[in-house]
């Protein structure tokens, strides 16, 4: 990618914007402009990197991130697999579309009691994350699978390939950019699911830290937990963005 003057300028402005934001955060905190519940950035960092707190954060991160990963992988696999299935068997597609959108319309807070009973408190976050991811990937994969051009489809037909061959050799590669975009946009959804799940009575994780710190007025702990979850999500989102650019360059 060539760095034109315009790109340099927008990059610089972006960095300036982020720096201004962090500076404002610090200034508001130091001068107590927003009251006692807005700590300066430096105080949050100090708390976060305090060696005596390391154990606490590492345990919470292990618990939350394992739920995020499990939910993300489960949701992705099921979403892509079902999208492939309805692509090969178009008869079941309208019902599957409807089911996916009904599930998506149910707010996560309403599903929590069901999951707590059906699975367990600890895995509720994983289940909500998986459902969120499933919907995004099901939608993006089904639309991506229709991206192959009619000419190519005809060619496969004429050469007598089966539906499965066509799916694996033609439709799936054509759908790859849409799938990767879906995987990018489902990263924050997976984090939301896992954190939400922990609000409903899980015994560990970043979500639990947030709620208990909020109720007990532990302001630096509260901000640290939120900062860790948001930053982790942003980093993965950024990495998926890079993968997306690579795939778009390769397959489009």
């Amino acid at each position: 990618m060539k760095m034109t003057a315009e790109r340099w300028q927008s990059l610089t402005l972006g960095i300036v914007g982020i720096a201004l934001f962090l500076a404002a955060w610090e200034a508001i905190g130091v001068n107590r402009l927003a009251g006692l519940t807005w700590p300066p950035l430096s105080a949050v960092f100090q708390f976060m990197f305090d060696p005596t707190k390391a154990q606490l954060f590492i345990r919470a991160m292990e618990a939350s991130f394992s739920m995020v990963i499990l939910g993300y992988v489960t949701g992705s696999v099921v979403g892509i697999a079902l999208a492939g299935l309805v692509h090969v068997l178009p008869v079941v597609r309208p019902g599957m579309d409807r089911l996916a959108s009904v599930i998506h319309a149910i707010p996560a807070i309403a599903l929590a009691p069901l999951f707590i009973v059906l699975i367990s408190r600890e895995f509720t976050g994983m289940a909500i994350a998986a459902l969120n991811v499933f919907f995004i990937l099901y939608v993006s994969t089904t639309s991506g699978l229709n991206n192959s051009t009619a000419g190519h489809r005809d060619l496969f037909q004429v050469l007598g390939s089966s539906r499965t061959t066509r799916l694996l050799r033609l439709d799936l590669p054509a759908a790859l950019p849409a799938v990767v975009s879906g995987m990018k946009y489902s990263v924050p959804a997976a984090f939301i699911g896992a954190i939400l799940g922990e609000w409903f009575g899980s015994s560990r994780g970043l979500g639990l830290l947030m709620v208990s710190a909020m109720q007990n007025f532990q302001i630096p702990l509260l901000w640290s937990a939120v900062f860790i979850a948001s930053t982790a999500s942003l980093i993965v989102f950024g990495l998926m963005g890079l993968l997306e650019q690579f795939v778009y360059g390769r397959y489009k």
Partner: protein
Amino acid sequence: MSPVSQTRSPLDWVKTAISRYWGVVGVLIAWQAWVTITGVNSIVIPHPINVVGDLVFNPGVYLANAGQTLFLAAAGLILGMALGTMVAIVAWSSRILSGILVPLGLIFSSVPVVALIPVLARLLGYDVKTVLGIVIIISFFPAFVFTAAGLKSLPPGSSDLFKVFGASRWTRFVHLVLPSAVPNWMIALRLSAPPAVLSAMLAEFLMGKSGLGFLFRQSATEFATERAFGTSVIATVISVLCFTSAVAAEKFINEKWK
């Protein structure tokens, strides 16, 4: 799809219904079967009949709380969209301002926003107004990002045309730039509607003062599972209503606009 179905027989109608709703019905049947076979206690999972009963016999409890949640979500969504649009317009007027604000907006709209609810609740204080504030902030970012992008995506050549005819910056803005942002604006509305309802409920759930989220928390701690599931049903209905009306509005506007 098929031109044959001009006169629809009842059989066709049943076929369409089955092809569209087999999944939803299947899940409901599986749920009922699971409850019947395992014979779980009704405190753990209530019977569907009891949930319906609680909804029918205590409409007052649900209506008052649902009304509050729906109002907060809708008002917050509208205010957040308005604020996001205004900031996007301000950013449009200056290259430097948009260069600074747009990346920040993008970062915030790709952060798991509901994680910010506890921080906002502490910042703004445990109050009904806080729920409104949270919904405003959460709806602000998509509105800002999409409107800012829409203000830039003008039809090719149109900007030159306006310049050739000597239109002022203001005329160009009102007659070209603003209208071309409308489809993007509708996308933002559709995308923000379900999170607005969800975040209103979550804020109520966490702070526990009033509203559907509070009702949910209260019934869950008192093991009033019928009420908890009834709340789930109402929440789903509200969420579906908001989403479908946003989709309908988007369709309507896009048809008028093109």
